[in-house]
């Protein structure tokens, strides 16, 4: 079952790279396409909140722990894509990519996230600025 789930999320992830999801709001009003980052960290919290879920990840930088507050799509959307309560849990080591906020770089738009022991099987891949380039309704 978990293998099937993994295949599903990987397929969804692969697709999202080329045809990213449309969000509740646009990307470039809040985030900076030039502030792309990739970090490893430990999941601190997964907030199943509306209108967007948030994933908080603790990242060690220069001897300090920095908590990244990453935005993803809605709880309903990820459930319809196969997520359940145990898809991503606090304490799990992850590698994630995202774009930083225009003012607060630790508030980011999550581009992708995968467990550290399976970095090539993303649990989630968001569009980021590529969604704007695709020209999908609502992506601007």
């Amino acid at each position, binding site marked *: 079952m978990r293998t099937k789930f993994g295949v599903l999320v990987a397929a*969804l992830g692969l*697709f999202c790279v080329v*045809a990213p999801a449309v969000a509740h709001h646009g990307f470039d009003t809040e985030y900076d396409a030039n502030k792309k980052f990739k970090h490893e960290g430990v999941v601190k919290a997964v907030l199943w909140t509306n209108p*967007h879920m948030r994933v908080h990840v603790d990242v060690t930088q220069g001897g300090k722990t920095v908590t990244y507050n990453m935005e993803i799509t*809605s709880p309903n959307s990820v459930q319809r894509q196969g997520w359940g309560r145990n898809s991503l849990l606090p304490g799990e080591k992850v590698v994630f990519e995202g774009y930083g*906020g225009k003012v607060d770089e630790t508030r980011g738009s999550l581009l992708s996230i995968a467990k550290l022991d399976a970095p090539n099987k993303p649990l989630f891949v968001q569009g980021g600025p590529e969604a704007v380039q695709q020209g999908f*309704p*609502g992506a601007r």
Partner: protein
Amino acid sequence: MKEVIGVFMTIAVLSLALLAQLQAQGGVSQIQVGGSPTVPDNLVTSQPIPRLPDGHVDITGPWVGGGSNGDIERDGGLKPGELPLLPWAKELRDKRLEKDEPYTACLPMSVPRVNPYPWKFALSYTAKGLSHIYVLHETGDAGAHRVVYMDGRPHPPDPIPTWWGHSTGRFEKDTLVIDTIGYNDKFWFDSRGTPHTEQLHTVERWTRINWGRITNDFLLDDPGAFSRPVNLKFQGRLLRPDLKTGGGELMEFICLEGNEYGAAAGFVPGQGTSIK
């Protein structure tokens, strides 16, 4: 020139390969409308159009799409510049910033806007028959519902402007026709900031053209902001009804629960509710 053709052909082949791959994956291409999986194009006629006991086509849904979102001009099938906005309205649209759209502060989208999440027509029957249709959106409406009166009542003579206005409906054969006046001027037609006035009058003509699709032939008439009435066309997609994707049902969505939009960029969202 040969290089250009070669690049074009390569892109075309890759696109077709991607499309085939997506089809093989069971229609995940619907992710592009906000992660709400809808019936793929190759299955829209796989079942007959359902009918209700009273003979009406069942237009319940839930549907995804069927209105404007990013740009009403583009989404409605017009070319750039074809939307007949009056100069002041065009100037206002061009001046508006997306961060100020009321929708981002969880205020209603209103008509004809839909976001990437599902919505449905909820038909309400009483002893007198179909008396009301409630339009329910999974999100974007801050918990409100839109009422369409189906009992033959007229519009009130001078309604107080509201976010959803006053709607009356009727069936013309298999098409649900909704006539609405009494809108306020606070909502935007799209993220682009296309405005309107309280003179707005809309006529929606909803037709379920097959099992998987519904069309919205939309008349927008607002002499306060447009030089003439304009017809727009939208299409909604049926939410996939299988249990794997949530059973084809609307789900709970409380927009104000944790709206952090703007915090990363240091602004307060949704400040553009006035055309003044």
